[in-house]
């Protein structure tokens, strides 16, 4: 393994991300802020939602923004770089085994997901106003959950980015990303699905469920959530599967 090359590729992605810093920030922050404001502030202040809903919502918003930014950061460049311009070719020719380029993309995506999660926490907390009690009493568990969520989003981005073409981006959002968000237990805890038994078990296939529930369990443990260890176990398995699928797709796409 050629670490110099790996590091150079990572710094290339870092360089491009820094160049696009403002649009990336807007893209990562605006939507969660609007959601937080409408659901966490407007609806609770008007009495249409209970104040306690803020505690349910905040970890969900963080989960959405981490997941989306990781998927976005890996999938979108891959989709365009594998198009007819084959921009990625110069990096495939870098002196390193082909699959390490995919690993590099995943690491870069994880970093972006973590950064956007870290930026969203304080911002959303500010927007949502008083009445939120975040606990940071389990820093280790919180860190592990964050890393696994970042890996899920980046590996998911790899798998998606290597499976679809430019013309299917819209379809990807309406068929994969939107259901994942709405059935990802971001806006409600998993236990709220109890009256829809079939759905409650079906959504367990959605990795975002574990992202939202894991963040809930570590940030607002007073809200009902899936046990942390179960969350970590499920995320490890899903990360492994997504990474394997993503690497396989990448190799197939990279070498004809």
């Amino acid at each position, binding site marked *: 393994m050629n670490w110099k090359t790996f590091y150079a590729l990572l710094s290339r992605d870092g360089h491009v991300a820094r160049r696009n810093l403002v649009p990336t920030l807007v893209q990562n922050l605006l939507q969660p802020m609007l959601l937080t404001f409408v659901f966490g502030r407007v609806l609770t202040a008007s009495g249409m939602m209970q104040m306690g809903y803020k505690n349910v919502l905040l970890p969900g918003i963080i989960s959405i923004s981490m997941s989306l930014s990781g998927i976005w950061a890996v999938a979108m460049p891959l989709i365009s770089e594998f198009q007819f311009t084959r921009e990625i*070719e110069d990096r495939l020719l870098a002196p390193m085994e082909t699959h390490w380029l995919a690993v590099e993309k995943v690491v870069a995506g994880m970093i972006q997901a973590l950064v956007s999660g870290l930026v969203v926490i304080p911002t959303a907390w500010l927007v949502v106003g008083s009445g939120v009690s975040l606990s940071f009493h389990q820093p280790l568990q919180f860190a592990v959950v964050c890393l696994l969520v970042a890996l899920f989003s980046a590996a998911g981005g790899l798998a998606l980015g290597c499976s679809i073409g430019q013309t299917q981006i819209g379809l990807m959002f309406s068929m994969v990303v939107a259901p994942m968000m709405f059935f990802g237990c971001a806006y409600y805890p998993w236990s709220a699905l109890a009256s829809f038994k079939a759905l409650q078990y079906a959504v367990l296939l959605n990795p975002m469920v574990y992202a939202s529930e894991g963040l809930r369990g570590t940030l607002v443990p007073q809200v009902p959530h899936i046990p942390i260890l179960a969350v970590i176990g499920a995320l490890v398995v899903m990360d492994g599967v997504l990474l394997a699928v993503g690497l396989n797709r990448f190799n197939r796409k990279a070498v*004809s």
Partner: protein
Amino acid sequence: MGIGIRIENLRKVYDTPPPIAARSGGFSFTPVRSKSTGDKKSKEKKKFEVVALDGISLEIRPGEVFGLLGPNGAGKSTTIGILTTRTRPTSGRAFIGEFDVWQEQVKAKLLIGVVPQRPNLDFALTAREILLFHGAYFGQSSRERTRRADEMIEKFKLTDRADHMVRTFSGGMMQRLSIARAMMHDPEVLFLDEPSAGLDPQTRLLLWEIIRDYHRLGKTIVLTTHYMDEADALCERLAIIDHGKIIAQGTPQELKSSIPGGYLLRLRFDRAPEELLAQLRTLPGVSEVRGTDHVATDVYADRGGTLISGIVSSAQAAGVELRDVHISEPSLETLFLHHTGRSLRD
């Protein structure tokens, strides 16, 4: 001391459309089909098969300029693809120096620089950044890559636009930058896949000069082309590829002298009966006469224009009208025609 290349019995069968086809289609979608045997559709899909290379063996000597010549779709790019780790061969082996390209990919990659058929520059970067990052991928120190990038920008006349994003570049500039990037890490072997396609004549000459300079440093250069003059001007040795097979190999001089007679006269009559062909064979200097259909006839001979009067009188004697004459001097084009029966651009 340069690095040689060896190809042993290379075969490539695409069972999905090759990337080139996908590229020209504008987008590519890797079909995600289940491999269940009951699925009729996937069975039909499996039948897609294109033999791009059909058992090619080649040896390229260290430090030589070697040309792969052939029409579109002959297998040139696939050969380059396999040698540059971008295409997996169905069978056979390829070596860059002592390294098997598919066993020791990283070591092979360190030795090669590649100029693709179409510029595949990193659109998220400026020209200078492309060179700098490329140097970094190949482990050059910061000082070394800065110096080298400056040198390349100067050499390829990109100084004015060095700090512009490359998506604003013209085709010729992109091509120049692609070549600069391939040379950035000073590779021992340089692959150029149709390097002068789309270049204006001036840039083409600059490119030839750069290739010759690089060759003088003892580097091995492999280029594909379908321009005869380019192959003639640059290559020390050539292989002519058609339908995935090598049909002739040697120095341009050797290849040209292998054409019987050297000159090719393409004739058209209103009809070409067998007795006329037999009559043509008896003309002085004629070494071969081929009737390609009932009207067209190819005459290989050691002379050109001086044969015309003989041909005209033979035609008159046979009661046949001569309708068109084209004389080709000895060239790789006539060589190609001789071997395949069709012109290079067909």
